[in-house]
């Protein structure tokens, strides 16, 4: 039976301003099973953004309409705009069958042409994207996309790309469905001979600028800055995210292509209202006083929990539990490739790192900084993950100051007159650890404790609190002694293996030059040792292995090697965050993964969230 539509839309249909529902929906619209019950239409959902570069706060809520999506458990990829697909055995060809009759938010049909346009004309345009985004290139070559028919497209990669479907489900996989051809083609010289005139009229300097400001990109603010750009999202921009904005308002997409089990067009909620707070505290205030309907972003630090719990009744909300996808709360990266040979020698000394690791009283740290909500941990997938590696995760986490001292003595770091140890060259052992206090205040607290622990075993360390840009610059210049960062890869070890080997040029801070070597295929950086090279090869292999078990086997090898090498020192398992949901907001799972790859709460499908009166 034909389902319902929002009263406001029904009115528009009645006034003849909008085609009837049946014409707006695909023949076989995607049916979404509501989390609890079939909802009712109406309401405006309030959520907070922080400052002017929180575009991902919007993305997580509305912008997840890719070809595929994650399931709620973050374990499998499910159909989305593609109702089904085929993958070639060598994992180089992916053929997607689109839902027929899906329309862009302006009513224009969405077809294979749009996807071909998005990839071939936009993403692969070197003026627009000087390098093809990592997801869409394998072995240095970009993907090729062909239209088979109006509703079928084929992606061909130069080499195996076994992870492509998972990648496609992450936010960074949204390129194929990002650019409506009928709208965005007007900003490409290829389709618009008069582009120069338009550029001038818009007051910008080049067509690429014009394109970016009109059609945006996955992760830039201007994606939400243009009310005219058609999208496939449940809500479309009504009040844009512009430089001076104090809020962003999104209103329902009348052509949204999903229905609930009763055939009612989604979304249930009329409007999403993102208030922009410059400061977290005012966001906290809004939460406490019940002016926010769902929020976990920015407020989820553990330290806020007592306050938020205390005010549950006042703010009329319940708590939402976030399952961390990260592995490590605080990973210490000693710079094994330090510019100063003496420092390098010290950090590269495995027993030095091991001694320092057992010199940390992790339990105390967890009790103080993390309210006892964690456990000592080194690295690797979380204990719940099938690839969990006990040795990698737990070795050298047992606090034993005496043993640490003995190990250091043995390794030749003798105590000097002032109780601090000396390096082999006679200099005092001293290094600083970079940390960004504004981003991760808890890490500063943790390091303070570590500093005290290490002082007891004769190691002098400085907690170097610096500003974000400087943190990165020091990393890029390989100028840091050591740094800390939460270690990813707890639930999604394939997506960011920065701790497992020198993979991430900004993230694998223990050996930035090796990562450069890896990402540039040996052209730049510094050649890593064998064990690293081996892991790099293994990872490339895993990436192109479609079979999940085989892939797991390869990855486990990597973890074994990494455990043996013991390059990073972890403190404790990443701590789960939490959020709040107003009591009258239903159909929201009360437990969800917390990850960029599973950009919560998007995969929980906000389009089926609904207000009870």
């Amino acid at each position: 039976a034909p389902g319902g539509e929002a009263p406001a839309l029904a009115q528009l249909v009645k006034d003849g301003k909008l085609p009837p529902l049946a014409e707006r929906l695909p023949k076989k619209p995607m049916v979404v099973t509501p989390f609890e019950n079939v909802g009712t239409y109406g309401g405006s959902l309030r959520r907070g953004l922080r400052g002017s570069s929180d575009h991902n706060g919007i993305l997580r809520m509305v912008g997840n309409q890719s070809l595929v999506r994650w399931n709620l458990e973050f374990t499998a990829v499910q159909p989305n705009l593609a109702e089904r697909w085929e993958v070639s055995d060598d994992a180089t060809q992916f053929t997607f069958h689109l839902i027929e009759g899906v329309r862009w938010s302006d009513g224009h049909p969405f077809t294979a042409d749009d996807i071909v346009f998005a990839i071939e004309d936009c993403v692969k345009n070197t003026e627009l994207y000087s390098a093809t985004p990592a997801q869409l290139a394998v072995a240095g070559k970009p993907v090729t996309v062909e239209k088979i028919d109006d509703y079928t497209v084929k992606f061909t990669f130069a080499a195996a790309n076994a992870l492509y479907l998972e990648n496609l489900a992450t936010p960074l996989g949204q390129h194929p469905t990002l650019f409506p051809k009928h709208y965005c083609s007007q900003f490409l010289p290829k389709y618009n001979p008069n582009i120069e005139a338009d550029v001038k009229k818009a007051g910008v300097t080049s067509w690429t600028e014009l394109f970016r400001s009109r059609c945006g990109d996955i992760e830039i603010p201007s994606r939400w800055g243009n009310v005219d750009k058609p999208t496939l999202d449940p809500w479309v921009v009504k009040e844009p995210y512009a430089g001076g904005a104090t809020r962003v308002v999104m209103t329902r997409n009348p052509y949204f292509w999903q229905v609930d089990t009763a055939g009612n067009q989604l979304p249930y909620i009329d409007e999403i209202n993102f208030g922009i707070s410059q400061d977290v505290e005012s966001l906290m205030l809004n939460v406490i006083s019940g002016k926010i309907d769902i929020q976990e972003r920015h407020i989820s630090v553990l330290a806020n929990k007592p306050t938020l719990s205390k005010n549950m009744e006042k703010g009329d909300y319940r708590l939402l539990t976030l399952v961390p996808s990260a592995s490590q709360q605080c990973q210490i990266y000693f710079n094994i490739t330090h510019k100063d040979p003496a420092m390098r020698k010290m950090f590269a000394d495995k027993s030095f790192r091991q001694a320092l690791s057992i010199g940390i009283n992790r339990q105390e740290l967890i009790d103080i900084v993390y309210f006892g909500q964690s456990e000592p941990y080194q690295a690797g997938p979380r204990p719940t993950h099938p690839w969990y590696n006990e040795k990698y995760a737990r070795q050298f986490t047992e606090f034993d100051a005496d043993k640490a001292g003995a190990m250091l003595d043995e390794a030749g770091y003798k105590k000097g007159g002032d109780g601090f140890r000396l390096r082999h060259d006679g200099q005092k052992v001293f290094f600083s650890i970079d940390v960004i206090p504004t981003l991760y205040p808890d890490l500063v607290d943790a390091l303070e404790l570590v500093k005290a622990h290490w002082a007891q075993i004769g190691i002098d360390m400085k907690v170097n609190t610096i500003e974000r840009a400087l943190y990165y610059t020091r990393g890029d210049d390989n100028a840091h002694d050591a740094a800390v960062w939460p270690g990813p890869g707890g639930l999604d070890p394939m997506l960011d293996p920065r701790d497992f080997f020198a993979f991430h040029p900004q993230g694998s801070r223990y050996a930035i030059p090796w990562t450069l070597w890896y990402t540039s295929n040996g052209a730049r950086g510094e050649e890593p040792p064998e064990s690293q090279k081996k892991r790099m090869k293994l990872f490339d292999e895993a990436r192109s292995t479609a079979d999940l078990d085989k892939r797991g086997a390869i990855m486990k090898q990597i973890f074994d090697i990494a455990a043996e090498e013991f390059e990073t020192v972890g403190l404790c398992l990443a701590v789960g965050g939490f959020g709040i949901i107003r009591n009258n907001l239903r159909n929201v799972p009360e437990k969800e993964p917390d990850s960029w790859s599973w950009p919560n709460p998007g995969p929980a499908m906000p389009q089926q969230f609904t207000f009870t009166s």
Partner: protein
Amino acid sequence: MADITVTNIPPDRAAVASQWQLIWWAFRRHRLAMVALVVTVMMYIVALVPGFFAINDPNLQNARATFHPPQKLHLIDTENGFSFGPHYYPMKLTRDPETLAAIFKEDTTKRVDVQFFGRGYEYSVFGLFKTNIHLIASPDKTTPLLLFGADRLGRDVFSRTVQGSQISLSIGLVGVFFSLMLGIVLGGISGYYGGRIDFFLQRVIDFVLSLPTIPIWLAMAAALPQDWPATLQYMMITIILSLTGWAQLARVVRGRFLSLRTEEFVAAARLDGVRERRIIFRHMLPSFASHIIASITLAVPAMILAETSLSFLGLGLQPPTISWGVLLREAQNIRSIATAPWLFMPGCAVVVAVMALNLLGDGLRDAADPYNK
């Protein structure tokens, strides 16, 4: 000359009184200012040897004392019989499993007596020698005395406040001093000579004034060598800030000097053969002393607080350095307001310091005012 009818100070002594003595005598009569002076001196003594006045190691984190509320110091014990002497009761911690909120309850069965000049953690005095004697010490190391409560890491807020006074009461002064010197000299020159010198200096001042501060802070924070200790870095920032701060004072001084320089007594000083520097400082400046004293006493708290704002922006001092600004910054959140208001105790220290300095300034002003009786 008429006779002095009543004399309460021997004329001899009165006759040789220097102006400083006069000011001191006048100052001494100002009771509030005397109190302020005593408070200020005491604060600086504390700032000199904070270790002695602290009770617990200000950096010591304590898992059992996170958000520990302030402890009451009792004098009379009625729980365990009846006895005198300063003591406190340790608090028992339980945690709400759901909200993770800590619940503390005084355990009156145990009693800890406070020691004076007892032994505690080791600290160094002026970097010369180390000792562990404290004004107040608690013999019970497991349940420390937390007069102002504890922060999120269980650190003793009282000891931290005491420790923070060191930086807050010293570094700001350096900046104030610099801007004062520069401001008076350049403003004085500008206003005293007027004309072309004034025009030129004013353009320089305009230039400095119109340099926006935020980019300067950011640039500065980044440009300073990272391996400097935080305090040295911060001192540089305050000095550099004062390099722009002087311009404000300079403009004010100059405006006043422009009017003052036409006064006859300035002409008279010139005829006395007084050199320009002395005219500016000795003859003209005192006419402006009230304003300057007011500015200084205002600038010092401003500096203490500027540090909070700076650390808010991720500049300025950062923990683990302890200063009042840092402590306040750490308390700047809804959490503290709602659940741990004692974290604002450093704010009270600021209030006391500001009060003392300002009352001191008032007293000085009055004492230096010839029209004051």
